[in-house]
C-alpha cells in the first residue's frame, strides 16, 4: 500500500495528502494530471521509470493551458518523483500520478491567480496480463471534447468526465472500450487512450489536431514502429467506416500500454487478434520499458535501491 505523497513542496505520509472540501479543482475540474509508469525488471532487480521528463514536460504544458504557475522544472519533478518512489521501495510495477491543482477555494470560476500546487502519489500495479483475444470496441454516441471548448491535447482534469461518460456507456452496453469521434465526425481516440490502425501494412493514427491527447506512448509507438519494425507511420484524419476495414488496430497509453482491438461495432478486424503487427509492437514496447533493449536506455530512469533494501 502507498505510504507517502508529495504535496505542498514536501513528502508526507499519505494520510496527510488531503484537500479541503471547498477546493477549487474539486468543484470545477481546473487542474491537470499526468500518468507515468515504473517497470520492475526482475532479473536486474531494478525499477525503471519510463520517459519521466517527457511526461513532466507535457504536464507543465497542460498546466500552461490552465494558466497555472509551477516553479519546478521537469528535471526537478523527476528528482522528486525518484525520491518518492525510492521511499516507497516498490519492487513491482508502479503507476505515478502527479496532479496540478488550484489550492484556492471554490468562489472563483477562473484560472489565474490560482495558488497552484502539485501533488504526486505512486501506486503499485499488478504485472501486466496480456489479453490474447483483444478488446471488443464500439463507436461512442458521445463526441470528443473539442479543442475550442476543453482541450484533449493535455490531461485536463475536467475533460475526463467526457472520457468517463464514454467509458461507462461502452461498458454498460457490453463493450470493453469505445472509440470517440470528433465533433466533425473523424476518429479521435479511445475513452482515455490513443488509437492506431494498420491498413495495407501502414500504421495510421489521427493527427494531434483531431482532438487527441498528445500521448507520450503514442510518440513512443511511432518511433519504435519506424526504427525497430521498419514500418511506415502516417498521421492523418481517419473516417469512421475505415475502422471496419482496418487489418489490425490497437490502443496505446501509459495505462493500457499496447492493447489489441478484436472488433469494432461487432465487425471483426483481421484474421486473428492480436494481429501480427500489434503483437510485434507490443513485444518491442515491453522490451524497451523493462530495460531489455539497450538502444532505448535513455528513456529509462533507474530508481536507486534504498540502503535497507539493497543491503
Amino acid at each position, binding site marked *: 500500500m502507498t505510504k507517502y505523497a508529495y504535496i505542498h513542496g514536501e513528502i508526507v505520509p499519505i494520510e496527510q495528502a488531503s484537500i479541503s472540501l471547498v477546493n477549487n479543482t474539486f468543484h*470545477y475540474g481546473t487542474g491537470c494530471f499526468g500518468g507515468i509508469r515504473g517497470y520492475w525488471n526482475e532479473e536486474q532487480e531494478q525499477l525503471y521509470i519510463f520517459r519521466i521528463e517527457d511526461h513532466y514536460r507535457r504536464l507543465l504544458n497542460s498546466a500552461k493551458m490552465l494558466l497555472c504557475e509551477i516553479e519546478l522544472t521537469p528535471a526537478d519533478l523527476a528528482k522528486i518523483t525518484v525520491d518518492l518512489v525510492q521511499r516507497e521501495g516498490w519492487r513491482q510495477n508502479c503507476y505515478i500520478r502527479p496532479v496540478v491543482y488550484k489550492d484556492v477555494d471554490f468562489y472563483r470560476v477562473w484560472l489565474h491567480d490560482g495558488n497552484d500546487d502539485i501533488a504526486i502519489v505512486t501506486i503499485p500495479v499488478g504485472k501486466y496480463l496480456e489479453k490474447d483475444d483483444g478488446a471488443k470496441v464500439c463507436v461512442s454516441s458521445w463526441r470528443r471534447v473539442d479543442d475550442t471548448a476543453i482541450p484533449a491535447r493535455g490531461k485536463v482534469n475536467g475533460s475526463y468526465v467526457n472520457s468517463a461518460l464514454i467509458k461507462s456507456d461502452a461498458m454498460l452496453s457490453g463493450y470493453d472500450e469505445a472509440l470517440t469521434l470528433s465533433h466533425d465526425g473523424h476518429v479521435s481516440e479511445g475513452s482515455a487512450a490513443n488509437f492506431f490502425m494498420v491498413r495495407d501494412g501502414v500504421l495510421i493514427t489521427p493527427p494531434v489536431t483531431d482532438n487527441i491527447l498528445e500521448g507520450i506512448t503514442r510518440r513512443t509507438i511511432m518511433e519504435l514502429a519506424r526504427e525497430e519494425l521498419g514500418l511506415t507511420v502516417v498521421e492523418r484524419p481517419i473516417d469512421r467506416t475505415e475502422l471496419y476495414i482496418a487489418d489490425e488496430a490497437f490502443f496505446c497509453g501509459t495505462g493500457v500500454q499496447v492493447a489489441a482491438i478484436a472488433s469494432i461495432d461487432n465487425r471483426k478486424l483481421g484474421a486473428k487478434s492480436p494481429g501480427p503487427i500489434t503483437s510485434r509492437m507490443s513485444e518491442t514496447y515491453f522490451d524497451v520499458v523493462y530495460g531489455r533493449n539497450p538502444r532505448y536506455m535513455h528513456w529509462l530512469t533507474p530508481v536507486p535501491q534504498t540502503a535497507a533494501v539493497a543491503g
Partner: protein
Amino acid sequence: MTKYAFFNDAIVPIDQAKVSVMTHTLNYGTGCFGGLRAYWNPEQEQLYAFRFVDHFRRFLNSGKILLAELPYAAEELAEITLELLRKEGWREDCYVRPLLYKADEIIGVRLHNLRDAVTIFSVPMGAYLPREDGLRVCTSSWRRVDDTMIPARGKLVGSYVNSALIKSDALLSGYDEALVLSQDGHVAEASAANFFMVRDGAVVTPPITDNVLEGITRRTMMHLCTQALGLPVVERTIDRTELFLADEAFLCGTGVQIAAIGSIDNRTLGDGGMGPITRQLRTLYFDTVRGRRPEFAGWLTPVYDQDNEKLSAKQAMAAD
C-alpha cells in the same frame, strides 16, 4: 466563517471534512454540484431559503447524467441543508454548495460501480460580481462544451474548466465577463450564468437546446417577467450580431443574481448602465427572494421558523 459541513452522511465540523488527493472527482471532474442561496430579511429577522427543492431536483438530475445514485430525495437534501443553516446560525445572505462526487480513489476512468457521496456546506455571500450594472462583456474565442461531449445542462464539475478558461481570458483582456457561443455559432450563455436580452419590449433567452444551464434563476426570471411584469418571454436561438442590437441585456444565476450588461464587444447597449426592464426585474427579484412579495412566497422556506419549518417546506413543494 463556516463551521460545519454535511459530510459522510452527518453534519461535522468543516475542518474534519477533507478528501484524499486521489479522490476520483478531483482527478477526473466526475461530479456535479449545485448553488443555492438563502436571503436574510432584517425586518423579519428571518433567513429565507430560495427554491431549495427545485435546486436539489436539478442537482439529482445532474447526478443522473453521471450515473450517480444517492440515497436521498430532493426533499431530504433540502431538509438536511435547512438543519445545516440553522446550526451555522447565519444572520446574513448566504450561499449553499452541495457537491456530489465519486468517492473512490483513482482507478478506472468511468462513472459506474463507484461510490457516490454528497457533501454540503454554506458560506456567507453578498454580491458575487464586483459590479452589477454596466458590465463590460466580450464574446469569448472559446466555444461552449457541447451536449454531445459534456452537457452544460447540469452543473458538472468537469464542464467548469470550460467556464474557467472563458472567464480568465475575459478578465485578462480587461472585460468583466464573456458570452460564449455554441459550436454552431449561436449564443449560449456567459461563463457561468444564463443570458437574457431585451429587443423591442420582448425578453429573449436561448433555449435549453443551445448548450445552456437549465437555470433555476433563469426559470424564476421568466416567471417573474410573464406573471408580474406582463412581458412576453421568448426562448429562441440568438445570433452573435443580435447581441449588438439589443436594447438591454443581463446575466442571471444564483451566484450573479441579476447583473446588467453595459457593452458587448465594445458596443454600448442602451445608456451603458442598467436598462429600465432590467432595473424593474432586479427590484422584483430581490423583493421576492427576501420575502417581500407574498404572491411568490411559495418559493421560500423560512429557515428559523422552528414551529412551522416542516409545514412551510411542504407548502413550498406543493406550490411549486
